[in-house]
């Protein structure tokens, strides 16, 4: 019996330890399983208004920056800003998204029109359905859009012209301006003609230089890339200065410049440059680029919608600041 009594204490101790370990393990397991988020999606913040931002290249850094600022502004006005084009399976165009927006009965549309008359028709249709539409970056002035936020085409042409004049040398024989968008788009034409006149007027080499425009139909996929490659492949067509009025064009042109080893032979004036383009500016490979105050673009877009909603009218034009990046101030834009 003593033998039993002696052995009973360690046995009880072992049992208690086992029970504790098991209970602990079970508790830990329950804890882990409970913490596993399964399907129960966060229902998110609720908003009163639903706006939608439609642009062709919605996933580009430029548009992402605009979207960020616009969304921030929208949130302050109890509105949720949806952007479309980014993560959809089917390749819808601006027109489709406008249709969808109208059918979805959103409370406001921010759109970058591309000169397509169908788009303009839909802007009018949206207005007819009591959905205010503001245009950004590009204008559709002869529609019922409530406001336009962007750079004045005239001003843009002037600024480009100025920097081209500064870049030109006596060896500059040919300047090619890439115009992305519909041929009929009057604003692009305005920009191009302003560049042209600026060079002719201001530059001492204005008379000897050939200024051409290459129109790229952005409605077609991969159009920019192919068109720009063509320019580089045709040795007769190679310009001394390549002017890009578009983010995608800038990216493609710079990539082609590297790929076809034309550094030193050709200069690029970019628009909304990437980090690698900024590096090129700092090294002197390319001379300049324009950058848009995207924060302003986004903020003004939502402000315009909100203002229209509250007041029933809104100013037709919000001007956005354009910033010139050259070797002198490139460091301010480069990361780190």
């Amino acid at each position, binding site marked *: *019996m003593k*033998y*039993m009594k002696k*052995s*009973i204490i360690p*046995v009880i101790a*072992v*049992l208690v330890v*086992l*029970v504790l*370990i*098991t209970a602990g*393990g*079970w508790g830990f*397991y329950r804890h*882990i*399983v409970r913490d*596993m*988020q*399964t*399907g129960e*999606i*966060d*229902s*998110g*913040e*609720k*908003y*009163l*208004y*639903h706006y939608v931002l439609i642009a062709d290249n919605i996933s580009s850094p430029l548009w992402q920056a605009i979207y960020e600022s616009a969304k921030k502004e929208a949130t302050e006005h109890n*509105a*949720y800003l*949806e952007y479309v084009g980014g*993560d*959809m*399976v*089917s390749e*819808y165009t601006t027109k*489709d998204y406008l*249709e*969808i927006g*109208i*059918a*979805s*009965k959103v409370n406001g549309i921010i759109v970058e029109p591309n000169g397509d008359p169908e788009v303009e028709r839909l802007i009018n249709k949206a207005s007819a359905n009591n959905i205010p539409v503001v245009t950004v970056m590009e204008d559709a002035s002869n529609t019922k859009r409530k406001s336009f936020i962007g750079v004045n085409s005239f001003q843009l042409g002037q600024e480009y012209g100025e920097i081209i004049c500064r870049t030109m040398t006596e060896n500059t024989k040919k300047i090619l301006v890439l115009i992305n968008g519909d041929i009929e788009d009057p604003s692009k034409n305005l920009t191009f003609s302003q560049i042209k006149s600026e060079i002719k007027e201001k530059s001492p080499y204005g008379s000897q230089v050939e200024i051409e425009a290459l129109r790229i139909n952005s409605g077609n996929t991969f159009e920019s890339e192919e068109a720009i490659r063509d320019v580089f492949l045709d040795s007769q067509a190679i310009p001394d200065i390549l002017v890009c009025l578009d983010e995608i064009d800038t990216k493609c042109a710079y990539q082609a410049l590297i790929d076809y080893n034309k550094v030193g032979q050709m200069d690029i004036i970019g628009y909304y440059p990437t980090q690698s383009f900024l590096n090129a500016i700092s090294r002197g490979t390319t001379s300049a680029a324009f950058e848009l105050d995207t924060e302003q673009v986004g903020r003004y877009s939502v402000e315009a919608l909100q203002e229209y909603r509250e007041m029933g009218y809104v100013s037709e034009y919000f001007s956005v600041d354009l910033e010139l990046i050259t070797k002198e101030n490139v460091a301010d834009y480069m990361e780190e």
Partner: protein
Amino acid sequence: MRHWKQIIKDLSIRKKLLLCFGFTSLLLLISNLLLYKEVNRSINRIDQIYVSNITLNDLSDALTSTHEDVYEYLSTKSSSALENYYRSGQQFRDLLEDLNGETRDNSMLLLEKNIKNMSDTYLATMDNTVAAKRGRNIQRYKDCYAEAEELYRYITSYIDNLNRQQFQVNSSSYKTLLVSLQYMEVVSTAILIFVAVVNIIFLVLLTQSIIGPLILLARTADEVAEGNLNAPLLEVTSADEVGTVTKAFNQMVYSIRDHIQRTKESMEKEQRMMERELLMKNHLKDAQLKYLQAQINPHFLFNSLNAGAQLAMMEDAEKTCLFVERMADFFRYNVRKMSEDATLGEELEAVDNYIYILNVRFAGDINYIKETDAGVEDIRVPSMILQPIVENSVNYGIRHMEGEGYIHVTVKREDGEVIIRIKDNGKGMEPEKIQAILENTLEGHRGQSDSTGIGINNVKSRMELYYDRKGLLQIESRGQDQGTVVSLIIPLETA
């Protein structure tokens, strides 16, 4: 606690086993139930995962059938197609009810809202289409249908998109749940191992409580079997079968001990009796031998003495005749009686003859006085006990003394005993000498040619053996020249 322990101890082994197996089974059952419940819960969660996808597929199907019904109606204008459209449209509307209609900062919820609103627009457009068709407004219903078709495309694509997003989320949930199932596998294995360990511990404890006392019992039994009957008895601590066996075992050991004790006692008794008999025989043999040595051919001696007595008669020598006859009687008694007991009367007669012979030999200087209570003659006593005492009194007491010597023999009944006192007025002796005589340590008195050969000690021993009692022969003396009294005590009850 103690109380509880005792209750458990007192259960029978069968009940203990039942209790133990019941407990372990219950433990297993409970743990299994717990685990099954958990598995079920996990499986239910997994089942729930793809419910949202199924709902969306239903929605998509309803949309498609609505669209097809309208197309059918527009193609055929059949009333059944119209009915179908109303039915499928209603079904579609019902399904739409479940979709989120609020603007929320969540891409899937926002998709739901867009799908819901677009579907509303779509259904309104369809209604318009159908109305236009019924109103035979051909251009309008074609336009409306084209618009609806466009919307149908968008909605389908949105539903697909939502479906895809949900599928992604659900797949990750599924993976998570699978991981949780793996965790569960580990945990359930651990729990089963734990239960097994607990069960084993309980079984070990149980078997120990059964086997432990059995082993102790077996050990004690071995000890007893090896002859150690004084092995400590086992304590009976439980009232189960083992307790019963232990109790029976203890009882058995007690009985064996008792039995052995009794056997031992009776054997000892027997042994003592045999020893006494042997001693008695030994002493008798000793005495006989001595007589045989002394009287080589007693019959020849008796016959010779009888012849002498007749001769003395013929010569008219009466005294000589008497003397010779007495001598013959004395020796005949001696020879005859040594092997058996005798009566006190015969013993006294032998003393008479002896004294007579001595008085003739030593010219009558021994005064012999005899006082006898009536009725003691027939008491049976060992033979040859009085004469040797008297002989000693003569030889060591009065032979060498000055003056007249007396021998005083008294035979008295006292308190169930007969006391024979042989008193002389001779030299007497020291207490040391008395002691020496009684303890038979006295030297130098053996081999006296004049003796009949039987010493005091022989008498003492034979009496003690005969009566199985000590202290039957006593010697008293007041010292030098004070005489000696030798008392023989004859117990009557055994005589």
